[in-house]
């Protein structure tokens, strides 16, 4: 009898919980607040547009202009291999005409194809399509790095923050020490060693070759930050009254973490993740400049920049004659817009989730 009453109460409670969640849990309230934040909505729209452009833009533009991002066009560069500028009609021929002295001859009159943002370098590929394809690869690296970092950080951070003790001491000393080091150097070392063996993993062309390995390594080497965030957060929450109350009614550690603590940490991690996607994209730019980034078959915004400026072993010095500003401006602008939008969104999410916090 008593058990039946308790079970009945339990059901009622559960129903009410379900109701309150649909009527306005913390996430819904945050979404309502976010919707009133004009600039964050703009940022969200811009990011959605970038994702869509990355997924479908290259294919659509390719269909419209009639070539794709990996087709080389010899006549998209001049005789000195300087790539054609934006809005150039380029002869479609793949055959190069040279005279008896090996000098480039003008192509026969015929079909031309439009290079909206010009060509990408000596190979004469379409910069616009590579930029759009690069959006996909760069975002995959950014998001993949965040996901891998969280996979490392969640168990370790929880272990240190929730259980404390020796595990906490070890984890916090280790992360503190490692974070002070030039992680870039370690990342270069690891990428140069491990990437070639991870390069083949592409999950049946779901991601381009090399993306998985790079995201994995970036994730591993940036996981210290979320680990410390989770640890710090759980340490303050561990002794909160609602956690004590859950302990008292007999909830297991697992349940407390999943039902009560994870939602709190999730908001912090969401804010971190939005910024980390941007920093991972910048990290990929750096790796491209070192020459250990994603192989050039799949363009990233980083490899577009490094085609123009060379790698650190062979930098292309600035030369007024060959200077092609659009090759720098467009990828940099793409990165800038993405990073600014992610920053704005993360700021908006922070304000929406914790409206009581300052700023």
């Amino acid at each position, binding site marked *: 009898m008593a058990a039946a009453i308790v079970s009945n109460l339990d059901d009622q409670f559960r129903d009410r919980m379900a109701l309150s969640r649909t009527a306005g849990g913390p996430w819904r309230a945050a979404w309502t607040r976010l919707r009133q934040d004009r600039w964050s909505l703009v940022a969200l729209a811009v990011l959605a547009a970038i994702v869509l452009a990355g997924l479908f833009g290259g294919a659509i533009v390719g269909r419209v202009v009639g070539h794709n991002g990996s087709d080389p066009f010899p006549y998209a560069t001049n005789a000195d291999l300087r790539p054609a500028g934006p809005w150039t009609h380029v002869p479609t021929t793949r055959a190069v005409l040279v005279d008896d002295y090996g000098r480039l001859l003008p192509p026969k009159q015929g079909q031309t194809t439009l290079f909206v943002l010009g060509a990408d370098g000596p190979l004469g590929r379409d910069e616009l399509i590579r930029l759009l394809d690069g959006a996909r690869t760069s975002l995959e690296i950014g998001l993949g790095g965040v996901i891998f970092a969280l996979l490392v950080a969640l168990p370790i951070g929880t272990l240190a923050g929730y259980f404390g003790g020796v595990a906490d001491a070890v984890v916090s000393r280790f992360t503190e020490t490692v*974070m002070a080091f030039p992680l870039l150097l370690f990342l270069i070392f690891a990428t140069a060693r491990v990437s070639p063996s991870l390069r083949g993993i592409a999950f049946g062309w779901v991601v381009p070759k090399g993306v998985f390995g790079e995201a994995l390594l970036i994730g591993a080497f940036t996981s210290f930050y979320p680990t410390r965030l989770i640890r710090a957060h759980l340490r303050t929450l561990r002794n909160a009254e609602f956690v004590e109350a859950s302990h008292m009614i007999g909830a297991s550690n697992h349940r407390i973490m999943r039902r009560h603590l994870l939602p709190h940490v999730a908001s912090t991690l969401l804010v971190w993740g939005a910024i980390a996607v941007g920093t991972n994209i*910048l990290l990929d730019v750096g790796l491209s400049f070192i020459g250990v980034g994603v192989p050039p078959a799949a363009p990233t915004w980083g490899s577009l920049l490094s085609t123009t400026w060379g790698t650190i072993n062979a930098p292309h010095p600035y030369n*007024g004659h060959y200077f092609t500003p659009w090759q720098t401006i467009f990828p940099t602008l793409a990165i800038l817009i993405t990073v600014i939008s992610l*920053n704005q969104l993360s700021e908006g999410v922070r304000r929406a989730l914790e409206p009581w916090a300052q700023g």
Partner: protein
Amino acid sequence: MRRLLAYMGRRLAAGFLTLFGAIALTFLVYWAIPTKPATYVYPDASSITPAQAAHANHLLGLDRPKVVQYVDYLSHLLRGDLGHQWSGTRLIENTQLSQRPVGDVLYPDLRITLSIILGGAVLVLLLAVPFGTFAGSRVGSWSDRTISLVALIGICTHPMVVGLILEGTFGHLRTFRIAGYCPLVPDRGSLCGGLADWSTHLILPWITFALLFLALYTRMIRLSVAETLHEDYVRTARAKGAGESRVLAFHVLPSASLRVLTMIGMEIGTAIGVAIYIEAAFGIRGLGRLSVVAMTGTNDALDLPLILAVVSIVTVIVVVGNLLVDLLYAVLDPRAGRETVRPRTKSLAGGVF
């Protein structure tokens, strides 16, 4: 004072532990990678016989127990001896080796990179403090937004691109001499040197360095100032009739400076990472370039002593830099000696480079 000394003693011990740990880790990683040191001893051999490999290992001291190698390396390191490079080894009469000391390569490179980082850091602080304070005391205004936007542009443009553009532009105008590096204290046989040559050669690398870190520090100081302005003691200072500039200079900035100091300590490593690109952009052969060369070789051509030396030097820089920061922190903030650990934060963009 005694408390301060005890505190510094603990930090120093922690620093040594970090150094030994980092070197142990490098040794471990290194033994996990199959390398062929014999190819350095017999550069002309088309294939290495087992006897040659064993002989090379004996001459290089690699046949000793691994613990002995580690302790031996540490004891040499504490005397400032970074060991001998494998590349450039010559075999003399099949019984001894002539090797180049790593220090001969490393110390000049280190001097160059430290020149870039220290000069750049001074430039960053000279500019970031006024900009950050200005923006932080007017959060939400147009000037604040402009400064924040320019800061984001600074973060998003890669130092390599900035460096190459600066080099090209100013090289074209012939304003600054841009090629290479001139030592501050000229050696015998160096073509140029002295303060004027040193600074004109380094001004563009400093600007490149500053453009990135200026963005990070301006944002950091801005946030710090904006938060501190809400504190009760700032209100008290205002109530006592202190002018706005006095409040900023004497009440807000000291508290903001503690956070800046913490950030400097955490980002010494980042600065060394950024130096890689700056050196590449300006064709300077410094520590960054050396470490990339050491770390990106193929498995057969990895030079263990060089990598160990790079790791050791970088660790020493990071540890010494953090000790200085700890010391300054303890002097500026009287609570620091009492607390076991000072708060350690790192700018989010610290993950970038």
